[in-house]
């Protein structure tokens, strides 16, 4: 039974509003803090309205970097983050779509075993295998390189699993029709499977881009030069000061900037895959 009582609605909305407030307030605070000068932020009485240092703070964050500790400007960190997150997302999609294709459509010895080995790696995130991974990466001289930031993170059981499930919903007749139409394995993949996977790829891209963007431990470990830092590690280093005031206003501006690309990806790609979901019917 669905009952329509005004009180129920009011309570529901009150709880939702509270939830939104809890999530949104820190973000709002960061936004506000990034518009004041250092003194105001550190002073302890944070105003709830914007201050007059917006342009100055953002300009310094993006192009100059912190004054007291010689740090990279955020513009460069953003670029690093963008390259590694995109690399991770694209790499993961590339690897997992191919491995799922192999696991679903090809009969080869130990196919089941191969699938289970991939599946088991779900239990081995970077944090668990961090020492051996570090060792491998350093032996390959990939410390402080984009390859070092990207490659160890692109193997993805999640992606393989997602594509596998999707491929299994594609009727076998489509493969058979392709075979009769003279399409070999590569053509079938390129002409049929890939176009049908666009929405899955978009969904995976969103998830993996954010996963890549939010990496903290791994970049922290393998980057020693400031010029190779990602923005997430960069924020942390901004606040590590010995005897001076941390430049909170710049850190907040950086945090706000760090939020923009993932949000943009979600907003843009979500539109793509919602459209895909609405249009696709089988």
């Amino acid at each position, binding site marked *: 039974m669905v009952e329509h009582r005004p009180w129920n609605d009011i309570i529901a909305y009150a709880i939702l509003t509270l939830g939104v407030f809890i999530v949104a307030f820190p973000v709002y605070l960061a936004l506000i803090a990034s518009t004041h000068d250092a003194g105001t932020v550190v002073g302890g009485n944070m105003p709830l309205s914007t201050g007059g240092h917006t342009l100055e703070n953002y300009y310094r964050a993006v192009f100059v970097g912190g004054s007291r500790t010689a740090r990279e400007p955020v513009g460069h960190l953003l670029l690093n983050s963008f390259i590694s997150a995109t690399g991770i997302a694209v790499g993961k999609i590339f690897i997992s779509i191919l491995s799922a294709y192999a696991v679903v459509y090809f009969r080869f010895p130990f196919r089941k075993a191969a699938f289970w080995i991939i599946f088991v790696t779900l239990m081995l995130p970077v944090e668990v295998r961090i020492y051996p991974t570090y060792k491998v990466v350093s032996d390959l001289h990939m410390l402080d390189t984009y390859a070092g930031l990207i490659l160890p993170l692109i193997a993805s059981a999640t992606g393989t699993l997602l594509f596998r499930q999707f491929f299994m919903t594609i009727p076998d007749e489509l493969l*058979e029709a392709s075979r*009769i*139409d003279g399409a070999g394995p590569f053509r079938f993949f390129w002409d049929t499977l890939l176009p049908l996977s666009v929405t899955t790829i978009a969904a995976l891209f969103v998830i993996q881009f954010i996963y890549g963007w939010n990496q903290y431990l791994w970049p922290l470990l393998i980057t020693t030069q400031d010029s190779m830092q990602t923005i997430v590690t960069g924020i942390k280093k901004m606040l590590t000061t010995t005897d001076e005031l941390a430049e909170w206003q710049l850190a907040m501006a950086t945090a706000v900037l760090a939020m923009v690309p993932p949000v943009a990806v979600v907003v843009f790609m979500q539109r793509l895959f919602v459209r895909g979901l609405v249009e696709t019917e089988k």
Partner: protein
Amino acid sequence: MANVTLRDVRKTYAGGFEAIKGIGFEVGDGQFCVLVGPSGCGKSTLLRMVAGLETITSGEIDIGGRIVNQIEPAERDIAMVFQNYALYPHMSVYNNMAYGLRNRRMPEPEIDTRVQEAARILELAAMLDRKPRQLSGGQRQRVAMGRAIVRQPKVFLFDEPLSNLDAKLRIAMRVEIRKLQRRLQTTAIYVTHDQLEAMTLADILVVMNGGQVEQIGNPLEIYQKPATTFVASFIGAPPMNLMPLRGDEIKAQFAGERRAASEAGILGIRPEDFVISSDSIAGGIALDLNVEAIERVGAETFIYGTRQHAIQGIAANPGELPPGEVIVRIPGADAPGIGERIRAIAPRGKLHLFSADGRQRIDL
């Protein structure tokens, strides 16, 4: 244009299950062959073996004088229409038809000619830019047909192409398929479980059961002279009435025949061969029935009765009548009431007799 010849074709799956147990027949150039049988009888498997989608365990399949056992589907010069059409959902109707030709590196102008021609024949010309999801079931079916036509193959293979359509459309498409095949003069093999489709489409009808051929022949011949009780009950709707008889009953019924008198057998009578009459009929058979149910379909009426002196029955197979039940088909809508007693008679020439195991027809 080609003959298709199957020679002792067998299929055994890895688990040891024998799906096709040695089948051989020939489809002549331009003929329409229908494989019919209940689900699980191996008819689709056999078709897929001709297409090259299933491997052949032993035996030979010959298309147009070439043994194709080891040849890839694309190289066999066949085209297949699938039950669910298997259209490429992301391609337009035009591209769906052109795809196979492009893979063969046919020049684009020629592709265009063929696709336009097929679209004209199938009345799809206005929809060439649409995606399959924007089409109705019947239109999708026609696109699937178009994809087969543009290839100009030696053989068309149809795997229950009409079973996803509603009844009315199915009949219309059935006629269209037949007309199209006649016009193109292309050899066709068509799989269906619908005996009506089988009867109306086939030049050669192959009735299959349990991975084996029960009977091959002209559809009318099969209807008139079914070789086994399986064929008798599968071809024709409602099914033929089958009544097991003891040896002495057969002796009494068919006195003076050359047939060995004391063997038990199965008597078969088609529902439409009965006449309701109080007379008895010389040499024929008369059954006294209790009317249990009546089905009026307008032009004809089906009477379901039970025999009063029940002959002890054998267990019914799927598709057969329960022992003791008899269906009588009479023209028009005039029928006796439920509970009435009627006498149904059938002339001598309309009786079918089979051996007791149902595997053999005994000519009277």
